[in-house]
């Protein structure tokens, strides 16, 4: 697989935007500006960007609760996204959904989900619908290792194979479902083997290696687009932060977290870009600055944005 200089700059920028968004989210929360909780994806940037970089703009994704990175990788407007995180009226979901439920339907992001595994059954139906509509579009359905133990995943694998839907199921194995260690019951390879057993091509990747993720997912997307049906890709990765704000990190050691920080997906990709002479250190640093500046601008936009009016509370429960 060849990555152009332009693509490399795009991917690095998106990864820095994700990292910066998550760091800003945490800062805003600590400053008491955010009502609610959040699930940060720092450390998982290559899985989001590498996977979604294989889609056309009119393809679709459906996400999970740790979905900020996926949303940015699908090309969301950072201002509207940050405004949603702040619960503002001009956010993507008018402040109704918040961090865990951001959707950008026009941009092909059919939404994050607060129920672990909640998006997977819908993914099958979206695939069925895309086939019926005769559109040559592909859906990527993201979930984590936590969802891989849920019934929703297994029922959906069966239906996805039955209907040969144009869906790439992408499990981001970040090693913990809240505190429950994936290693206590499975591995990325074993999750991939489940897909194989259900009857779809499957693979596991070093989810911190953007190029490896992109290669595996591209194959699956091409397979789906050419009418070959669903695939399952498992990206082996790690979340640096806790599950949510209530996490005291009692179930893992600082040493373990530090070990994974050594495998930082952003630094890995920078090293690749340098080796392949795609981006110099200076260019990469400039991109980093840009990413952080974009998020700072989004913060300013969000903080200046209007709150929803209480009189509008009942709007949008039912469609006319």
């Amino acid at each position, binding site marked *: 697989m060849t990555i152009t200089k332009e693509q490399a700059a795009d991917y690095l920028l998106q990864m820095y935007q994700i990292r910066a968004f998550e760091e800003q989210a945490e800062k805003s929360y600590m400053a008491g500006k955010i009502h609610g909780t959040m699930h940060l994806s720092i450390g998982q940037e290559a899985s989001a960007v590498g996977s979604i970089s294989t889609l056309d703009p009119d393809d679709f994704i*459906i996400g999970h609760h740790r979905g900020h990175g996926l949303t940015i990788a699908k090309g969301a407007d950072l201002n509207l996204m940050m405004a949603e995180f702040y619960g503002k009226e001009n956010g*993507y979901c*008018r402040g*109704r959904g918040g961090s865990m439920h951001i959707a950008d339907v026009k941009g092909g992001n059919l939404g994050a989900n607060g129920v672990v595994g909640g998006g997977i*059954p819908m993914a*099958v*139906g979206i695939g069925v619908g895309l086939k019926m*509509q005769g559109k040559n579009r592909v859906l990527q359905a993201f979930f984590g290792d936590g969802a891989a133990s849920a019934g929703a995943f297994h*029922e959906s694998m069966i239906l996805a194979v039955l209907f040969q839907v144009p869906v790439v199921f992408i499990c981001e194995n970040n090693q913990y479902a809240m505190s429950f260690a994936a290693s206590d019951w499975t591995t990325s390879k074993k999750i991939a083997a489940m897909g194989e057993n259900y009857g779809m091509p499957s693979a596991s990747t070093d989810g911190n290696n953007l190029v490896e993720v992109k290669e595996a997912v591209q194959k699956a997307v091409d397979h789906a687009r050419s009418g070959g049906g669903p695939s399952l890709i498992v990206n082996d990765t790690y979340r640096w932060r806790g599950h949510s704000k209530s996490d005291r990190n009692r179930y893992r050691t600082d040493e373990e977290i530090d070990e994974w920080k050594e495998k930082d997906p952003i630094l890995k990709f920078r090293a690749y870009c340098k080796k392949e002479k795609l981006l110099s250190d200076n260019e990469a640093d400039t991109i980093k600055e840009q990413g952080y500046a974009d998020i700072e601008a989004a913060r300013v936009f969000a903080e200046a944005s209007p709150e929803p009016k209480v009189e509008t509370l009942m709007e*949008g429960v039912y469609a006319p």
Partner: protein
Amino acid sequence: MREITYLEAIREAMTQEMERDSRVFLIGEDIGEYGGAFQVTYGMLEKFGSERILDVPITELGLTGAAVGAALIGMRPIAEIMFMDFTTLASEQLVNQAAKLRFMFGGQSTVPMVLRTPAGSGTGAAQHHSQSFENWFVHVPGLKVVMPTTPYEAKGLLISSIRDNNAVVFIEHKLLYKTKGEVPEDLYEIPLGVADIKREGTDLTIIATGIMVQKSLAAAEELSKEGIDIEVVDPRTLRPLDTETIVNSVKKTGKVLIVHEAVKTGGFGGELAGVISESEAFGYLEAPIIRLAGKEVPIPYNRELERASVPQIEDIVEKARELATLKV
């Protein structure tokens, strides 16, 4: 006008809507060659093919979620859950997803789907194939809940439900499937959220749902011989509820008997009593609002025990007589 059964009316509504609108399709267990556990979809596979009649293995959560997902991108799926008891397995996708996606995404999405399911006892199928869970879904903003009681309404309400841009739980009663009635051959809609006065009367209002509408009508007929004049109101749609028709009826008669098959505690009767109590009809009440509903017991197998666990015509006659003749 020609007469067809409630079951045929449902099949006809789906068939005609599928002919009219290529976005409509069916998904469910054993709905293909088998024709569905109650034969509602019999013959539809032959007519529409396996591309639009999606027969699936046992995956209540999966098939319901597939309907939600398809609806999310503009299809109009009709999911069949073989027995309402099994909506327990489907409810994550129905309650957490279908009902909420529109609101939680700030109006970016719609979920135009129907979940059809047969409810109720009387078939000797006991605890796991006889329950009436309508009020669980009535409790969820974002869902609509419909309970047709005649063949005419089954067709018109189902067509409206398919065309509605929201998730509709369409609850059929097994014992009504074989009942016959006049049904127009053309497509027609009965709007959701509009109650029907099935029988006019002045002494007492019976508000009944599902099969209890038919039982209440039989009871009213019986009591008319004693000179008791009963009005029977069928809400038809539990959410949204036509409170106006109910309130007006209560204002007219001053007495209310609520009859439903579901267990009384936490049932829809409590909601109806609350709505009446909070309305201007309260001042017109001449007696306490009485609920006659399912007993606080799982549905038993034995015929007589099963019969005794839900209201029967004689129970309605007795309660209605007592209430109508009560002097206050």
